């Protein structure tokens, strides 16, 4: 709206200026403008073209004829045979005024919140320390599937952010040429790795779906806020937070994949509104995933002692398992998780 207001205001100002210039220009022009000395008169007597080639139609009427669609109905179908659609203008405004302007803040806000949380709470240590005894948690193929997805996700995330935010964030500082180079490179890599992401998503789903269905025990986890602010919470192989992240990756991943394929092969859809919707959903889903991924990375690394072992070595410390996944520990070992934490044997 603000943009429209500025446009109207500037147009009015320009119009007034033009009128003033026109009013003063005629007598001035008559006095000061002379043909140059070497000017040649091209009037050879031949007949000129029609003087009213555009007819008696004003510019605004011409553009109105090109453009179709109802500005009040964003979901209206694009009129047949129209060169421009109103939905296209609305899509452009959403992309420029909202997505490009505000979406990039989401990952930064999450990073900021995590930093504050870390400073206040610090890392979650294993109560009683490490036992020195480990139990297997993830198979090699599950770990490879996880890191494969992580690698592809990082490449797509970085290139996607350059494509989406390069113009407002890179161009003003590094210049248009640098932005153009980065955008070209990112676009090619993004298009190439996009189909790889679909493969990674399917692989991840097959490897991790077991154990990620929601159960009643997850309610306790929710009520106790995952134990992040103290207190013990029971969980099976995956807790509510991990399950939510898994399903978010899968479901949002499907949306990103479908919209990505539509953008990669625009001929698949006939209605341009699918393409417009795809770009918006793709950006929202991807940046949302990137933002939440920081939380996942935090808990998996510096936020919780011993959790990275599960994905690096495939094994976790017994005390870690008892503390964070007690029901899974009992299921795997057949022992009670409420026993005193095992102490690491000193040589």
């Amino acid at each position: 709206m603000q943009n429209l207001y500025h446009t109207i205001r500037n147009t009015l100002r320009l119009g007034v200026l033009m009128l003033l210039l026109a009013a003063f220009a005629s007598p001035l022009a008559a006095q000061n403008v002379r043909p140059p000395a070497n000017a040649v008169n091209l009037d050879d007597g031949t007949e000129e073209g029609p003087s009213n080639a555009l007819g008696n139609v004003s510019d605004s009427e011409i553009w109105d004829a090109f453009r179709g669609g109802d500005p009040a109905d964003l979901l209206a179908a694009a009129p047949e045979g129209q060169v421009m659609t109103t939905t296209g203008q609305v899509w452009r405004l959403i992309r420029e005024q909202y997505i490009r302007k505000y979406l990039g803040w989401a990952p930064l806000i999450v990073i900021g919140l995590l930093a504050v949380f870390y400073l206040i709470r610090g890392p979650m240590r294993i109560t009683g320390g490490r036992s020195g005894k480990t139990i297997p948690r993830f198979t090699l193929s599950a770990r490879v599937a996880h890191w494969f997805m992580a690698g592809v996700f990082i490449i797509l995330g970085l290139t996607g952010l350059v494509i989406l935010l390069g113009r407002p964030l890179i161009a003003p500082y590094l210049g248009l040429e640098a932005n153009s180079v980065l955008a070209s490179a990112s676009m090619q890599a993004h298009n190439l790795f996009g189909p790889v992401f679909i493969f990674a998503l399917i692989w991840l789903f097959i490897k991790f779906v077991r154990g990620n269905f929601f159960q009643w025990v997850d309610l306790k986890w929710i009520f106790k806020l995952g134990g992040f602010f103290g207190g013990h919470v029971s969980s099976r192989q995956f807790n509510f937070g991990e399950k939510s992240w898994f399903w978010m990756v899968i479901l949002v991943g499907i949306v990103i994949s479908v919209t990505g394929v539509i953008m990669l092969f625009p001929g698949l859809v006939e209605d341009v509104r699918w393409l417009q919707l795809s770009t918006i959903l793709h950006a929202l889903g991807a940046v949302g995933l990137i933002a939440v991924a920081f939380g996942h990375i935090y808990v998996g690394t510096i936020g919780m002692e011993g959790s990275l072992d599960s994905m690096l070595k495939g094994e976790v410390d017994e005390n870690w398992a008892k503390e964070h996944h007690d029901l899974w520990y009992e299921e795997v070992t057949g022992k009670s998780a409420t026993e005193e934490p095992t102490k690491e044997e000193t040589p």
Partner: protein
Amino acid sequence: MSFLEIVEGPLFTFAAAVFVFGALWRVIGIIRIGRKKDISPAKASAAAGFIKGNFRHFLPRGIFAKRTMVHIVGGYGFHLGLFVLIFFGTYHIDFLNQRILGFSWPAMPRWAFLMVSGIAFSGLIMLWVRRISDPVMRLISDKDDHIGSWLTFLVMLSGCFALEQAHDVLRATHMLLVDIWLLYFPFSRLMHGFTFVLSRGNSGATYGRKGINL
């Protein structure tokens, strides 16, 4: 002379020469070492074992097939993918035609190029991730393995960046990395691209001579 002209011209010629002579030097060196004379009577042909050993290793052993599935899928995906990309990608054929060979052959279509690229990238990432995830692989891997993997990945990635052919700097970056890769190849384990024939053959010949059915 522009940077692109340097990396595609004299630097590429130098790197290619080092690659060819270095690889030949090492392969001939290995062959010249020869094998310790086996004085026991031969029960079967060592030459047949050499050939059989080479082909037999293309297939996984039944009992290990499941455990090494990531390795097999990743290995085949990456190596075959890379081979197809190098020799059937339009830009590569054009480069080889104009700079080295003077003749060309049909290239694969763009959609196939993108698909094969995806397979090759997937394979390489899977192999490297396995290298750092598997405790045994992690233990036996050293700097050379990681440099080789990452250098190959960067060559491929920079090639992917330059696909649009819109900016010389992207093409130059790709070619610079290709040059570095060619220079590094003969002095590293990337040489397995040639020496695998000898190592598989050596095992095959040893067992073949003893009459062991591979």
